[in-house]
């Protein structure tokens, strides 16, 4: 039982688990606001792309930038100047405004969470669902495409797929869409079989005992 269930824990977190519930809740509010603001300008994809770029490309390149963003000791004006320097002429005004708003409310440290949250919200709004496909061996691109299409048909939804490899599932396929897991792995099937065998054996033994006991 432990194996297939815990195998998911070995997966890369893939940004779908935010450990800090409080931060996640705050981030969602900002994410929603940013998406709505971008929608009004009709540039949702671009704004999200730019923010994601800042979080995933710019910040890792400058390791201390994150600390600077998160630090309450650095004043709002200072942060505003930095944001201006980063965004001037390179991004849409909405993106820059979003960063300014976060800075003014002292939430710039939550930028990564805000972006993750916004991406999830956007996917929801577009009817796309996050899906993780786990297999025991890596799949060829053609196979991946085929599986995604088939699953999309089965659940009648558009998927934003990610692929993972976990030899522990032995064989078969585990698809996780949102909080629902469709598990057709050999490992889980073996566990279920084991449970059934154990139950039947106990039942048979008990039944046999009742039949054989003198009373």
């Amino acid at each position: 039982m432990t194996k297939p269930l815990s195998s998911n824990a070995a997966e890369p977190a893939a940004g779908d688990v935010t450990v800090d519930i409080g931060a996640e809740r705050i981030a969602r509010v900002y994410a929603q606001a940013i998406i709505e603001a971008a929608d009004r300008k009709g540039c949702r994809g671009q704004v999200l792309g730019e923010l994601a770029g800042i979080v995933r490309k710019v910040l890792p390149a400058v390791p201390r930038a994150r600390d600077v963003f998160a630090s309450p000791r650095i004043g709002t004006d200072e942060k505003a100047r930095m944001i201006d320097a980063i965004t001037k002429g390179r991004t849409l005004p909405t993106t820059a405004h979003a960063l300014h708003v976060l800075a003014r409310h002292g939430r710039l440290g939550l930028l990564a969470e805000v972006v993750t949250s916004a991406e999830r919200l956007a996917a929801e709004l577009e009817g796309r669902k996050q899906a993780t496909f786990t297999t025991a061996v890596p799949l060829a691109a053609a196979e991946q495409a085929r599986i995604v299409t088939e699953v999309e048909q089965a659940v009648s939804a558009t998927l934003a797929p990610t692929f993972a490899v976990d030899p522990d599932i032995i064989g078969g396929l585990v698809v996780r869409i949102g909080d629902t897991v469709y598990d057709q792995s050999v490992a889980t099937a073996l566990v279920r079989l084991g449970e059934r065998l154990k139950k039947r054996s106990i039942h048979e033994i008990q039944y046999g005992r009742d039949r054989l006991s003198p009373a």
Partner: protein
Amino acid sequence: MKFNTDEIASVLREEIDQFETGIDVREVGRVLEVGDGIARVWGLSGVMAGEMVEFPGGITGLAFNLEENSVGVIILGDYLKVTEGDEVRSTGRLLSVPVGDAVIGRVLDPLGNPLDGKGPVVTDLRRPVEALAPGIAERQPVREPLQTGIKAVDAMTPIGRGQRELIIGDRKTGKTAIGIDAIINQKNSGVKCFYVAVGQKDSSVAVVIDTLRKYGAMDYTTVIVSGASTAAPLQYIAPYSGTAMAEHFMYNGQHALIVYDDLSKQATAYRQLSLLMRRPPGREAYPGDVFYAHSRLLERSAKLSKELGGGSLTSLPIIETLEGEVSAYIPTNVISITDGQIYLQPDLFFAGQRPAMNVGISVSRVGGAAQTKAMKKVAGGLRLDLASFRELEAFAQLGTDLDAATQQRLDRGYRMVELLKQGQYQPLDVVDQVLSIYAGTRGFLDDVKRDEVADWEKSFLTFVRDQVPELRARIEQTKELDGESERQLEAAIADFKRQRAAGESHGNRELAGAAR
């Protein structure tokens, strides 16, 4: 005895043949934090309140708090095996326990797992742990008696089948003893008994089980144990699962008795859970719904209507008070829920009056209708008489000279108090109770010395059993004490007194002879 291994092997082969890899669909979440029997879970977005969830390793939990973006789960089992990052799956089921004849005579944990080493509980019957109480149309008034075998209780705070009678008192005042005596007395009554131990020392529970076994009560009793070392979630659900097991018999037209020992510990466990779940604390830091926790539990005790088979579930919840403080939060709650209370007092206990029941403030709100006519007749004014005796007694301690009438009432009172003393595990048949209480209330004991009352009663009951069996049979049959029976009884008492006096003088002569 040998198992037919071939048979088992063939069953297994069959299973393997049918082995196919169906899709296992589950809704999952991930454990964010875990500790003290609760877990905070991320995900599980479709889980319902009270739904059972499963942790790796087959540990179950209950969705307790549904929050905006996490689920608070109480872990029923070894929470030390659950770690951060574990996958949690919802099961779509409610928590249920095995019920029926298979649980009778067993010692189980609150999930229905055996603790007595007598093998698995083999039954397909299960009932949800949390169930709605029967509604008003499904009930009828309490009218059948549930004899506890304790004179003081059966005479003054009678309990009817379907009633909830609270047993309340400080520690070490004999609360459990009343519950156990009541269970032992159900031996030939066909009432199935359930003893739910919540937060009790495992050693005391072992003693209780041993006692029940010794008096042959385990043949019709189930013990549900979640001791002091069990995690709070299990202590919290233990009374509900015990009730589920008992309800099964009620809904099948049978009678059941359940003793919750004790609900203050359950309230404490619930408080712990609620505080860990960050529910706002109220009075004495208990959560706001602790009243509901007890009321929905005790409402499940009922006397069902005839259409539903007329089964009943009687409950004896126990509450431990601190220094006699009945106006604390939990005691007042449970007093207001139940149909009466038996109040036990330490000073009475240490004065040798056992059961140490304070007659003045112990009541039974519905049990009177369930008393047999004979008992009602002999015990009618007993409660008030004893209460007024207590007052007089306090007055008499001032050392004033008393007039003859007052002195006489005092003497009667002293003898009644003596008569109501009863040893543990010595339940009395209701006819015997009627006989001895009749002798006491009608003044036949006034000339017996106070320290001889117990002995007098004992030999009188033996005398009636041996020499006037027709009187016993008559009362047993009619459940009434009509004029004829009363005449016979008075004659029997006179007879007995004569014999006793003769025996005594005989004994005295012998003693005198021996001295010479």
